[in-house]
């Protein structure tokens, strides 16, 4: 008991706690086993969490983000409070691992974990974001917070959208639902993805496909997932060919995987766009998590 208490104390360090829509927006820090560094994550506990276990909704942020961007910019709290969802937003990569070149560019290394388990040196020790978000973090959350381990969903933005899609597609049944804002749908074919995957996974492109949503769909035997994707029409990264949603949609159409893809007129890649449709997405998840 003493050990466990000690462990828990050591494992979770509360950084901040703010009341928000009747619930609490907290930030914790812990020592990650997978990533071998201190990691912060944000967690919103809705009012309902005071009395019972709530479903858990994981948000994966995009390039350059920390746990702070989502919780301060997206304005998701009201919807999460109403639907009684615990929302967890982890950081986007290990930090302070002193790997050479980790802070050189904004689209690789720190803040650009790409939710893969790196296989290449020097990244493979720390850059295990896939295992972190699918295994370690959920276990930590399930142990320490009033969440229903059977009910979890995932969503994200841009690189996080890619993360959400691959996490859901690679783990059938683990997530009740998935949605994404302007996700990188086919990283294998886009400059960001190519850069990251070659860095983390090496030059063998066949290994990349295991982390490519479009390829995962093509290889998918079928899923019950109901995928919601919102995409700003004036998103510069869409026109730059970083996101490639059409490839993903085509694959899903072919494999009869249900997707509703909404091309939102006039919206860009920013959190303003996310804030506009975040309530839709939370409701989408609530439909499955609260069913």
């Amino acid at each position, binding site marked *: 008991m003493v050990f466990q208490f000690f462990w828990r104390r050591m494992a979770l360090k509360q950084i901040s706690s703010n009341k928000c829509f009747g619930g609490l927006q907290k930030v914790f820090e812990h020592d990650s086993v997978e990533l071998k560094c201190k990691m912060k994550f944000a967690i919103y506990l809705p009012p309902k969490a005071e009395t019972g276990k709530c479903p858990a909704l994981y948000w994966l942020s995009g390039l350059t983000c920390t746990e702070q961007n989502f919780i301060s910019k997206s304005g998701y709290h009201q919807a999460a409070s109403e639907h009684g969802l615990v929302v967890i937003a982890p950081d986007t990569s290990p930090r302070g691992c002193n790997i050479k070149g980790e802070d050189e560019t904004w689209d690789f290394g720190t803040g650009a974990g790409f939710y893969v388990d790196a296989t290449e040196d020097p990244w493979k020790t720390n850059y295990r974001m896939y295992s972190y978000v699918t295994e370690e973090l959920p276990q930590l959350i399930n142990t320490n917070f009033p969440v229903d381990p059977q009910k979890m969903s995932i969503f994200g933005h841009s690189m996080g959208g890619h993360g959400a899609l691959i996490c859901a597609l690679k783990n059938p049944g683990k997530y009740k639902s998935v949605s994404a804002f302007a996700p990188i749908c086919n990283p294998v074919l886009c400059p960001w993805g190519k850069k990251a995957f070659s860095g983390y996974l090496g030059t063998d492109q066949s290994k990349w496909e295991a982390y490519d949503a479009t390829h995962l769909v093509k290889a998918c035997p079928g899923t019950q997932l*109901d995928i919601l994707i919102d995409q700003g029409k004036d998103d510069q990264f869409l026109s730059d060919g970083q996101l490639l949603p059409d490839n993903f*949609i085509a694959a*899903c159409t072919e494999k*009869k*995987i249900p997707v*509703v893809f909404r*091309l939102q*007129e006039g919206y860009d890649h920013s959190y303003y766009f996310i804030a506009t449709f975040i309530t839709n997405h939370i*409701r989408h998840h609530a439909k*499955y998590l609260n069913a």
Partner: protein
Amino acid sequence: MEGEAGEAPGLGRPAASKDFHFHHMDLYDSEDRLQIFPEEDTQMRREVVQAEMTNKSREPMKGKAQRDLEEEVDELVHLYGLEDDHELGDEFTDKSTPRIEVSEYPPYMMTGREPLREQRDWRLSGEAVKAEDLGFGAWGSAGQCQDLREAYRYTHGHASEEYECYVIPEEEDEEEAADVFCVTCKTPIRASEKVFDEHKEHEVTPLSKALESAKDEIHKNMHKLEKQIIEMENFASHLEEVFITVEENFGRQEKNFESHYNEILETLAQKYEEKIQALGEKKKEKLEALYGQLVSCGENLETCKELMETIEEMCHEEKVDFIKDAVAMADRLGKFLKTKTDVEISAQPEFEDQTLDFSEVEELMGSINTIPAPSAPVINPQAPNSATGSSVRVCWSLYSDDTVESYQLSYWPVQESSSGKDRAEFTMTVKETYCSVTNLVPNTQYEFLVTAQNRAGLSPASECAVYITAPCPPIMKSKEIRSCEEAALICWESGNLNPVDSYTVELTQAETPGASGVTESVVGIPTCECLVQLQPWQSYTIYVRALNVGGPSARSEAATVHTTGSYFRLNEHTCHPWLTVSEDGLTVVRSERKAPTREPLPSDTCFTRCVAVMGNLIPVRGRHYWEVEVDECLDYTVGVAFEDVPKQEDLGANRLSWCMRHTFASSRHKYEFLHNKTTPDIRITVSPRKIGILLDYENSKLSFFNVDISQHLYTFRCQLHQFVHPCFSLEKPGCLKIHNGISMPKRVTFY
């Protein structure tokens, strides 16, 4: 008054019940009686057996003791089967007794037999009383008894057979119960008996089956009797009414007689007084006259006597004196003789012929029977709810002094056009102060007037009173009935040519099968439709009645409403000519055949350019959900629109409609969510085969779903200032099938 009131029911009831009896008996035709009788059979036969047992006890005990009991019973049964005359004689004949003894017995036999008969009859009437107590009707009357007796004789043969069957178990083996039913003997027997006894040849059924059929029979008859009881009760109440009327009429007549007799007696007394007085005066007058005459006659006599005496004295006088006196005397005598002696009787002794004038009395006497003609009756205004569709109950009253033999009720339908000249008038004669006039036209006004009549003649006619028959039942427009979870819109046609006052909707919740009564009524509905509030997820049976002053109509045909989800039908009035709506109003088909070249004329109600049709959604601001089954390759548009959406424009091409359109071209599905010609850019990877549509007035939303995978497709935010209707259009030949009246899937409720 009190005595009379107390007496009335006392008198009324026996009279009524007497009639009741007789009437009842009349109602039983012979067939009925035969049907009724077998029910009584078992019980009665049991009685008969007892009676025979008593009878048997009279038999000499010694003989009985000597014989085998069973044999004796057989014997008895056998004998009973014989002719009536021999039957009892033989019964009393000991088997060992010589046959001759029989002839010695007859007198005894007869005396022995008579009580038995009586006993039987008594038992029969006892049975009858029992039957009556059980509500089987009256049996006690003489004719009925006769019938019973006949019936008894008819069953008598059976009874004797029964006797044997009945006695054996008692005396031989008491613990073994009867388990089968001998149909021939109509008695329960033991199955074992069947093998060796005389039941060998008989048809047998299981006892339970026999019991069952007997019960059925009894129930059938009980129903028949119940019906008769109701009839009888009606008849009895009618008799009571007649009774009261008769009593009243006779009471009036008595009073009338009494007053007339008093009048006559008074008149006679007056006449008597007058006559007596007149006679007395006459008598006095005559006697006085006679007395006067008598006195003057006496006086004359005195004078004559005096004259005689004087003359005689003179005769004795001297001649001179005589002469002197004679001269004077002669003068005096001459004077006296000159005065005429009145010997006529001044008053006639005989009674003058007095003619008694009885004309007045005669007139009075005559008027006892010639009652005055009654005055005009007062017709009552129509009592509310007293009419049916084909009849009215007209009531009136008379002045209490009048004696009325009958009334003449005249009536004719009120017609505005013709001024009563060529009107069809009907007249009927009734004894009561009311009349149910039948065979009338529904929802029609009739004028009634009534004239009273007795031997003296007709009264003046009453005022005219207008009565109205109840309306025809409304005609339920079941195709236009729509519902949602909280309400239903019931539509009907009046069914009457003339307007009615209002309508009543009656709701019965179908969840309670035992309760047949009306659970709820909505009254005073002026129009031919009504929005009724209901409980969700229930079934209701709904009827409509039309009402006027006369009363309510019969119920319309029933309509059934289920408050699960929203239910509507396609509105054929809005249907584009190229579309066909199915019988159930839930499928719309655009057929393959080449569409007519000529475009239909523009219209306000019917879609002319856009090949569309509207559904009739209930105007309730709540949530409505329905589903549309589509073909993946079909070009269709589904959504909602205001009723006044321009029918020449495509759905979604204006601000009055919100639609999801699917187009399938070059193996690509295109989904548009159109309102005012604009659509968001949405791509859907799995083509829905069933589209769920949720219309939410409260949150001003219209959502579309792929039902099979419960995928949310799109939600419109729309300001619905009026009610919208579902709309459907087919851009290519094909068909859309609507599913409604279904509960909303749970996941749908999140949008």
